[in-house]
């Protein structure tokens, strides 16, 4: 019975829990057992809560018996990417500089999950400070792709995607700055969403690039993913960038047809994709048309600058956001004779190569004399890209693209080639620059490796993305409730 539970979708587990057929403790302990049995192989988790998760599960069971109303995923445990803080639990963000730090407060998204009746199973591995596309920059260990352990799970939310794909969590939260939820979702064959900027509170999310960071849900089905978003979405008084826009009824949207939906399949994206991904995306387009959706043409003239703009803006913000890691207030710090020594030792030892590279680039582009040429110009072009999308969404309701240029690559294949690694984000980062929502859905495999397509939409129209994704997920031919 217990091993079977991990094979069910989150939605199915929630139903069983609601009907009183399975307790939250049973669901949680089944997942903890799977983690114990298999995670050594994948390295999805940095920290497993164990007893703490079971105690939280008991509390959820007690609340159900008391007749308390909980959330759309009550009874279903979740995994959190290690950039999301939870009171009393270590938070490393995949970095040595936070080794041993126990967070004294809880992120709003995590608080909403717990309030909604979802115990936290553990903290998942990720690229250091969410900077990477393979989870190989984690200071602790790389995570392996459950579909092929010789390959990366993608990143930076590789641990969350792997945990969900390996049945070590029914659903998980990751975080995005340029594709860090969608790309690993595509590589691991699960569903991942980057919500509209401001849809989910960033309070308690370790910052990388504040103007693009967003927590996003991962699940094995579109419905599971939609339910997870429903629990965490909405205005938070602790985050001024969170939006007061009402949260849609995502579950009701799921059952609506895509007939009449206008979608575009821009060459600007397809041109960057390998043959397998092109074919899968064109296949997805045909499926949409067959279901009554209408294909339209759009133009995104500024898109070619997206990668450059993304790099400047995200590095600039990162260089400032990571300044707080100075060895003074938390983290291991380093014994030092003077102040400069303290900074050099703490940061020199605490940060890995990729993080240092980004801090240096960001510091450079913000420097006097370079600010206008780089940062200001990048922000202006960013506005143009956002305007491109705004204009495109007058013609199209959604935009369909491959999620990644290719399927999962091998461990070590790109880690010494930063430019090749950065190119991983080419399909995904435009949505972060424009602040729009984007969903990655698995639509099948190529040589045994999962292939994902991406659906982007207008701000706060996550419901339409789920509706479209629901149709596309049937293309994979996999029953992810029991793969």
């Amino acid at each position, binding site marked *: 019975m217990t091993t079977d539970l991990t094979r069910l979708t989150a939605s199915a587990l929630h139903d069983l829990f609601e009907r009183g057929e399975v307790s939250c403790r049973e669901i949680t302990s089944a997942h903890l057992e799977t983690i114990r049995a298999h995670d050594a192989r994948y390295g999805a988790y940095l920290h497993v809560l164990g007893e703490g998760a079971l105690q939280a599960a008991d509390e959820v069971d007690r609340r159900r018996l008391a007749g308390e109303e909980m959330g759309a995923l009550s009874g279903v445990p979740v995994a959190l990417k290690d950039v999301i*803080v939870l009171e009393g639990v270590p938070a490393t963000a995949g970095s040595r500089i936070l080794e041993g730090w126990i*967070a004294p407060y809880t992120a709003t998204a995590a608080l909403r999950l717990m309030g909604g009746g979802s115990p936290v199973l553990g903290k998942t591995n990720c690229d250091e400070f969410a900077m990477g596309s393979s989870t190989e920059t984690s200071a602790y260990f790389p995570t392996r792709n459950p579909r092929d352990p010789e390959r990366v799970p993608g990143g930076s939310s590789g641990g969350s995607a792997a945990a969900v794909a390996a049945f070590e969590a029914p659903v998980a939260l990751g975080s995005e700055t340029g594709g860090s939820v969608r790309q690993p979702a595509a590589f691991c064959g699960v569903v991942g969403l980057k919500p509209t900027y401001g849809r989910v509170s960033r309070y308690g999310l370790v910052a990388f690039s504040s103007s693009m960071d967003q927590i996003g849900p991962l699940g094995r089905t579109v419905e599971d993913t939609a339910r997870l978003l429903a629990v965490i979405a909405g205005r938070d008084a602790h985050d*001024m960038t969170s939006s007061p826009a009402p949260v849609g009824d995502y579950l009701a949207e799921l059952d609506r047809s895509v007939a009449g939906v206008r979608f575009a399949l821009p060459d600007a994206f397809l041109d960057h994709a390998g043959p397998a991904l092109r074919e899968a995306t064109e296949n997805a387009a045909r499926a949409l048309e067959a279901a009554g959706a209408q294909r339209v043409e759009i133009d995104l003239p500024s898109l070619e600058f997206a990668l450059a703009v993304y790099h400047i803006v995200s590095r600039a913000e990162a260089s400032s956001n990571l300044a707080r890691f100075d060895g003074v207030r938390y983290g291991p710090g380093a014994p030092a004779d003077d102040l400069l020594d303290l900074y050099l030792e703490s940061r020199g030892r605490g940060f890995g190569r990729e993080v240092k590279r980004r801090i240096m680039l960001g510091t450079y582009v913000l420097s006097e004399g370079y600010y206008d040429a780089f940062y200001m110009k990048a922000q202006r072009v960013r506005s143009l890209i956002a305007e491109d999308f705004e204009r495109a969404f007058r013609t199209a309701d959604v935009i369909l693209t491959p999620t990644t240029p290719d399927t999962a690559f091998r461990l070590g294949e790109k880690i010494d080639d930063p430019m090749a690694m950065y190119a991983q984000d080419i399909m995904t980062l435009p949505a972060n620059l424009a602040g729009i929502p984007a969903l990655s859905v698995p639509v099948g495999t190529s040589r045994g490796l999962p292939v994902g397509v991406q659906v982007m939409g207008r701000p706060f129209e996550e419901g339409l993305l789920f509706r479209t994704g629901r149709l596309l997920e049937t293309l994979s031919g996999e029953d992810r409730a029991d793969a």
Partner: protein
Amino acid sequence: MPEAVIGLEIHVELETRTKMFCGCANVFGAPPNTHVCPVCMALPGALPLPNAEAVRGAISLALALGAEVAPELTFDRKNYFYPDLPKGYQISQSRQPLALGGRVKVGEREVRIHHLHLEEDAGKLLHLGGRAGVDFNRAGVPLVEIVSEPDLHSAEEARAYMEEVRRIVQHVGISEVRMEEGRMRADVNVSVRGSERSFGARAEIKNMNSFRAVERAVRYEIQRQMAEVAAGGGVRQETRGFNDETGETYLQRLKEEADDYRYFPEPDLPPVALTDEVIGEIRASLPPLPDERRRAFAGMGIACDDIALLLDERSRGDLLAAAVEAGGEARAMANWILGDVIRIERESATALASSGLTAGRLVALQALLEKGEISGPAAKKVLEMVYRTGEEPQEIVRREGLATLAEDELGQEIAAVFDANPKAVADLAGGNEKTLFFLVGQLVRRTGGRADPKRAAAMIRERAQAWKPPS
């Protein structure tokens, strides 16, 4: 003749209930790190939220200075490393300060304000015998920076300007500006003009927290720069400190080593519109400002120096204005405030504003005095009790038995004083006026202030003639 050119950057901490970007209490003097939270300690994942009270306060000050408030509130990050700066950047305003322009009247001169902006304070370094610590209680306390144009030309003017800014801040009601708590600090730019060798290069003297320090530092710096120029040297662009013990400024660093703060828009705080409606509402609720009070008090016949003293603490002017409003005579009221009230406040732990002394009570006290119901010394005693307890003066007079003695009672007391001092009485009767003061003093002491000294003096003089020592 070379001329000094001086501009000030004044920082004032706003006394809001909570800090600028979090809910921690904004208090002075608490044990280290007892008012901190994830936001002001810059824990990973924490986000700032602007404090509406601080924004409103800063807008009030901007309006009081006659500055133009920006159409929206925007923040920037000022990036630098220092242990007292938890985030590694200070949230400040650089592209679009909260307000531009404005003026401060200093005597006959009008000093132009360049701009005013809102930011957060840093923590405080503590030196713990060979080790260093940081107290983050102050980290995130709202700070307004008021930057003047270089319109000042002497040490005295610089001081007078800073004093006037303090009065305005206090009148606006956003801070008591307690100097001893470091609530107001100034950086002063000094240059010497009119000599070709000076090139107008200026020295910035950093972080002074008293009027006296500013005045002394500027005086020293003007002399130093003039001497440099006279000796054939030039003045360099540099940052200097002020040593309070020697009264001298000293080189901290040359400007070539200037920091690059890598300012950029704070992405955690999107712009907030400052509508005409909100600004109009704040403008309408501005309390009377020093300049307005100055004119009003001068119109009441109060002397210039007295007015300055009255305006140094808003509570004094408030009391005077309210007392006059309640029917008190301006000069009599001002005399009370400038004399006994200031003395009592200084000796007491309670500030005037939170004392029991109200305008109504001060007017009532003066009325009792004028009607002769109490004596001058008794009135002082009553005032102290009113200040402490907030009781009505009449009530205190009744309970403490401080009413002036009736004619026959006074006669009996005088007789008793005469009996005890026969020689003095004889001397007075013989025309030695000096003994009159002695006898009046004895009477006042004996009656505990219940005798009105003037009336008593008249009676003593009159009765001394007829007095016969008891045989």
